[in-house]
């Protein structure tokens, strides 16, 4: 699933979501500006908050859940779609 705002885009791999039911709750918990919301186990990317992303990278740190690196992407739309943490 991917959602773009003006400056930031967020992409979360659907396969990782299907495989790791705890991922939505984890993302909801770590993001300081409420970009992720878990509703009945499903993940929602909150459109109006996406541009508030502070590029902290907390949502990228999913290895301890067994989720592959790169399953969550924060994309800087203003910087040739550079992916946070991959520059």
């Amino acid at each position, binding site marked *: 699933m991917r959602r773009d705002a*003006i*400056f930031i885009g967020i992409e979360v791999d659907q396969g990782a979501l299907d495989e790791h039911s705890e991922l939505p709750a984890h993302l909801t918990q770590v993001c300081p*500006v409420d970009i992720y919301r878990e509703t009945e186990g499903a993940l929602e990317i909150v459109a*109006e908050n996406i*541009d*508030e992303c*502070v*590029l902290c990278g907390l949502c990228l740190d999913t290895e301890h859940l067994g989720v592959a690196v790169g399953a969550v992407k924060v994309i*800087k739309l*203003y*910087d040739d779609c550079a992916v946070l943490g991959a520059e």
Partner: protein
Amino acid sequence: MRFFEYEAREIVKRSGIPVTDFGFTTDAAEARTIAERIGGSTVIKSQVLTGGRMKAGGVKFADTPEEAQAHAADILELEINGQMPRGVLVDPKADVKQEYYAGVVWDGTAKKPVILFSDMGGIDIEDVAREHPAHVGRVHLSNILPLSDYQAKECIAQTGVTGKALQRLTPIVRKLAQLFVDNDMVLAEINPLAEMHDGSFIALDAHMDMESEARGRHKQLLKDLGVGDDETRMAREPTEFELAGEAVDNASHRGVAGNVTEFDGNIGLVIGAGGGSLTLFDAVRAHGGKPANYCEIGGNPSVEKACGLAKLVLQKPGVDKIAVMMSIVSNTRVDIVARGVIKACLELDMDPAEKIAIFRIPGAWEEEGFKILEKYGIEYADRSVSMHEAARRAVAKIAGPEAVTT
């Protein structure tokens, strides 16, 4: 924040300075009761936060309690400079031998309080200072050292007052200075400070203005005086534009994007950071620019908050472009502010490159911020461009090169 005269007098009274046996009321019949208690002639004074009461008919003399009631009824209905009175102050008519002036104000240039004293009271101190400078004494106070009678005495003596009057005035002026410091005032003024025929001194009128930011430190005093939390007590009522700015700031807890003050110029300002707002506002004016507003942005506001403020300024009638300028920021992120102001333009269907005359915010996350600005073609400056120079460029770009005076 300003105090009504009856409140200012109460503050003066609490500091131990003699005041008259005045009374405050919102009811004409009670004005009569107060006048009966006082006995003799009285003065009925409208309680408004504006000058020109006498000229407007807001101060009247009464020889009897019945007359006091009638005057109070008239004054309570009388609007002065757009303000209805909070009530009336009923004061004994004093038999005065001489009127003096005593005041303490904040001297922004010296960054210290200064005591002002004049033996020509009852008129504006500015007029006395201009026309009779030898009749105004001035002594600066330390911000940290304790006050002493000596400072008050030195100030009074500069006007030629000697003897018993000097001895009696000294503790009054020292107490006024103490009141100023203790209550975080920016102005504490007694005018007139009257010398009675028996040689005693009494405060006949007082003006007090407290630093708004210090309200939290004086909750008990404000509660005792009945000043509500929602009363701004500014020199004028906030405009719709200013209220909208307050709403933007209150919409989220993150950072500051508010303290908006409306002016009638054409240069829209989104400014801030550690005193940067005042410096930049002054710099714009020094270059001949006419700001459309003042505001403060800092403390890392959300994108939405920066966007809300920029939108408000961009939509102000007469504003064509905004200048986004701050001092070097530490905790407020350049990229977040950049996103906010650009988003404001886009949501208003405006071209950011055209509407943002200059963006000068160096500091935290500036590389990221500059990438955003470049993408949208916005003219930006890093720390090699001073705030002064950025303000000059803003004036030249918004008001035209011919508007730049320095």
